[in-house]
Every structure is written in structure tokens, then in C-alpha cells.
């Protein structure tokens, strides 16, 4: 089988995230990294391969993003992907979730994967929706926030936590599965894998190469239109104690609780 893993470059967790006030888009400058949730998707692909219940011919990392996103693909390859595909075109900038999912689905169609994996959410956009959009365009079944996935024959047995407890769902391949971070502990790449990552095949595609209809992507063509940003309602800042002397810290906590009659 062939597994495609959707990955995304996001601002590093330590970077303060902010908006570009003139466009309302996220300011994506600053230190960047592979979306942490995506590392779990790559690890899930590796475990399917190593599990051996079904032969995995290829694991392909796929991303859409500016030129800098190449680094996220290198990281994905160092974690185990065999090669990568980069959809990169100015015409895609500012695409909303629906347009992004459409463009990714067109890119995936070229690869005809048996399984598409992705992280359940991106660290920057906080949205769990891209998998369902991609699946609908590909006409594949999909499930999000999966924390256990077993391959048996032509189907996956997936577990996830939903509104009323844990659900177990059987999904026939080909399918799109987004994984939660509880699914596995991603491995660390070896030094050799890091050094070798840049030598692996990386195909860079324009929107035209992927047969993406330019009228359906980009900020101006996205159906959800950002119109304004505003600050949230002001909330009084809480009190902060830096714990230096724990005895004193605890005294202050107890006094605080006592004042509010909470003990």
C-alpha cells in the first residue's frame, strides 16, 4: 500500500503568534517547525509499515505552503517518509480551510494513496477540519482524532474518543484518518536520517501541475471571508506567584483561598 502523510509547517511553539493587521491572516514569519501533531501521523505510518500485516511500498509526505515549508518536508523525511511533494504557488496564499483541503485533495489524487494520514489539528490554526474536507473531495471515508489504528486486510479498525465515550469504527481503505497525539510516541530521527533527508526526492508542484482550479483557491476566492479582527473582551489579569520558597508560596495560596472562603 501507499501512505500519504499530510504535513504542515507551523510557527514554533515558543514563538508568539500574531495577526498581520492589514490582511487578517496569520503572521507566519519567525521560527518555524513541523506541526507537532503531524509527527504522530508519520509515526503511525511507520508503525503500519513495521507492523508487517500489510506491505507498505511507500510513505510520501505532502504539504502545501510557501517555499520555507520545504524544511517541514525534510523533517518529515527524516522521521521516515521516503519522499515528499510540495504544492507551492502564490495563487494559493490566503486559502481558507475548504480551499486548502481542495488543493491538497488534487495533489493527493496524483499519488492515488491507499491511506492518507494527518495530525488531528495544526498548532497554529487550531482546526480539526482539514481531514474531513480532503476526504470528501477524494470520495473516501474518514475519521478524525483517532488514537488507535489497526490494519487488517482492506480495512482499518480505529478507536477514538467522541462525545459519549470511546467509539470503535471500522473504515475500509482507501481512507483519510487524522490522528490524535495519544496514538503513539514519535521516534527521534537519527543523525544519519537528518543528514540524508535533503537528498531524498522532493517534487515541487505549482497549482497548475496539480490541476488545481485557480478560481477555487487563494484569499480572494475563498468562500469564508475574513472581514475584521478585534481584541477579546478584557479580563482582569490573574495574580501570578513565582515559586521560589515553596513554604511561602503555599502560605500565599492558602491565604488567597481563605479570603474567598474556599477552604
Amino acid at each position: 500500500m501507499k501512505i500519504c502523510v499530510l504535513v504542515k509547517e507551523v510557527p514554533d511553539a515558543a514563538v508568539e503568534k500574531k495577526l498581520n493587521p492589514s490582511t487578517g491572516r496569520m503572521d507566519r514569519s519567525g521560527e518555524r517547525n513541523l506541526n507537532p501533531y503531524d509527527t504522530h501521523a508519520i509515526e503511525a505510518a511507520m508503525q503500519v509499515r513495521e507492523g508487517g500485516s500489510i506491505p507498505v511500498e511507500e510513505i510520501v509526505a505532502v504539504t502545501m505552503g510557501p517555499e520555507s515549508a520545504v524544511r517541514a518536508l525534510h523533517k518529515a523525511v527524516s522521521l521516515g517518509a521516503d519522499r515528499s511533494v510540495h504544492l507551492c504557488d502564490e495563487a494559493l496564499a490566503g486559502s481558507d480551510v475548504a480551499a486548502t483541503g481542495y488543493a491538497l485533495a488534487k495533489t493527493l489524487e496524483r499519488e492515488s494513496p491507499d491511506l492518507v494520514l494527518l495530525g488531528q489539528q495544526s498548532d497554529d490554526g487550531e482546526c480539526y477540519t482539514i481531514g474531513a474536507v480532503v476526504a470528501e473531495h477524494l470520495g473516501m471515508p474518514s475519521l478524525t482524532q483517532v488514537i488507535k489504528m489497526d490494519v487488517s486486510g482492506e480495512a482499518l479498525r480505529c478507536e477514538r474518543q467522541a462525545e459519549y465515550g470511546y467509539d470503535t469504527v471500522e473504515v475500509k481503505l482507501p481512507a483519510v484518518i487524522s490522528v490524535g497525539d495519544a496514538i503513539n510516541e514519535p521516534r527521534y530521527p537519527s543523525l544519519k536520517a537528518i543528514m540524508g533527508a535533503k537528498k531524498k526526492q522532493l517534487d515541487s508542484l505549482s497549482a497548475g501541475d496539480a490541476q488545481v482550479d485557480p478560481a477555487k483557491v487563494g484569499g480572494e476566492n475563498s468562500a469564508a471571508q475574513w472581514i475584521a479582527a478585534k481584541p477579546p473582551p478584557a479580563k482582569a489579569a490573574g495574580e501570578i506567584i513565582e515559586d521560589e520558597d515553596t513554604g511561602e508560596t503555599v502560605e500565599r495560596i492558602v491565604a488567597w483561598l481563605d479570603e474567598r472562603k474556599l477552604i
Partner: protein
Amino acid sequence: MPNILVYALHYDGAINKNSLGAVSEGARLAEELGGEAHAIMLGEGVAEDLAASLGRYGAKKVLVAEGPEGLAQPLVDAMAKAIGDGGYGYALFGGGLLGFEIGAGLAARLGAGVAMEVTNVRAEGGKLIAERPILGDSAISEIAYRSPVGIIIGRLNAFEARESGAGSAQVEQLSFELSEHATRATMITRGEQRGADVDIEGADVLVAGGRGLGKPEGFKLCEELAQAFGGNSAVAATRAVVDAGWYPYAAQIGQTGKTVSPKLYLAAGISGAIQHKVGMQSSENIVAINKDANAPIFEFSDLGIVGDLNKILPKLTEAVKAKKAS
């Protein structure tokens, strides 16, 4: 097309509280647009009186579709059919995992704009504008729709369920075709409870633990502190540690867990992700202990302690005991 179609999640003969909130919100917005709010329910033999009861929250009509429960793609098919039949300008979802999946799939099917994690919606010039907090809730962005249908996925607990004083809704069967891919996923078991059945919803004091506890045994520190408070206190957990099997599902706060508002919520080793925040932010007093000074939870706690919970919790337990004894 001023009507709004609202998804109503149900399980075991009851409608989800967040869906009731979405129906109430849909009714309020439809009235401003000069239309009606209709709800849609899908399942295996949905009871007519359950569907009709949504009238009390403002739904004028409830569409009932026959299909497999608990999966998103059958609802994408059913809602796309209802919307294709005409009259709807918006589809609205309460918070929750299925709402996200259905809303996103529907956006792809219809080429519709979608806004998620929405906390407020307003009508302006006959159209709806969705407000969505972004960047760790440090800004709110406003989204309008260019597409004929706009999709609004609410944040958990964003919309309050309000009985409108109206009676039963008209119930109508909706016939639709399942798409091929919707038949390729099958529910094997639904709603399995993992771990002990504990009650956290009625507690006045909740001591909640997250991944920062470091190991399952870390919950012992939380349990001892909860015991020290005595009375009506209990221990709660984040999704990450429940999924990891450290604590029972019944004690989980947030997106796919419980929503609580105790007098005191003491969070130990919890970073404060949005999915957790939505389940506990209406607590009367929030105290957070975390070693990372940049943890988002300090943005919405009343008292934040930056430090090592392994040092602080045992001493705090002793101090609370001593205070209670005095």
C-alpha cells in the same frame, strides 16, 4: 434564503446539550433574518416525540433521516440533500467532534465557507457574521460568507440552550441516498466508558491533573489534595491523560468530556489548551500550577503559580489540612 439548518446530535434517547444550544441560537438568528430554524436528526428509528421536542427550543420543523448513528459522512449526505432541496442559507453546529467533521465535509460538498470554534454570531444586513477567537483567544476574527450557504461550527458551550415557550415542532421524514464512501465506515461499538464511573459534575472543588503530572501515579497528589479539601471535592483530568489511560474517562473535562463550573478549579500540570478551557472556563475561581510560565492556562487563571507541582502539591495538601483543622 433566510432559513437555518441546525444539526442535533442525540444518543440514547436524549439530545446533546450543545445541540439544544445550537437550536436556540439558530432560532434567534433565523428570526433576525426573517426565516425559520429547522433541525435535522439522523439515526436508526429516531423517536418522533424526541424530534418534536426541539420545538421547545425554537425549531419550527425537524427533519428526521434514517441512517447509521455516530458517524459524520451520512449526515453530510442528509444535510446536503436538505440544503439542495432549497431554503437554507446557513448550517449551524454546536460544539463537539461530530459537528466539526460534518461541517467540514459539508463545506467541501457544497463549496461553502466554514468558520469553526465560533463563539458569537450576529445578523447584519440580512447576513450572518461569525466571530471566532484565534491565536489562543488573544484576538477575535470576524468571518463573512461569499458562498450561497455559510457553515458555522460553534465552540463547545458557546450557545446557551433556551426554551422559547413554543410547543412541539413539525416532524418531517427526509429521504436521502448514502454516498458510496459513507457506506465504507461502520460503527463497531459506540460510547464505551473506560475506567471507573466517577462523578465530577456536582463537585464544589475540583483538583484537575494533566500531562505535567509526569506519570499516572502523579494523580495520587491530586487525590490527596482533593481529600484535604474534604466535603464535595473530586479529581478531574485532561483528555491527554485519559487517552493515555492514566485516569477514567468519566473524570475528563473539555471538548469530548464534561463541562464543569465548580467554586474552585485547581489545575495541576495542565497547559490550558482550548479543548480543555471550553469545559472549565466558567469555574468561579481558577488556580493553576504549571512549571511553564508561558502556559496558556495562566491567561485565564485567577491565581497562577509558576513552579514544580511535585514540590507544591504535597505542601499545599498539608497546609489545607492544617487550615481545616484550625
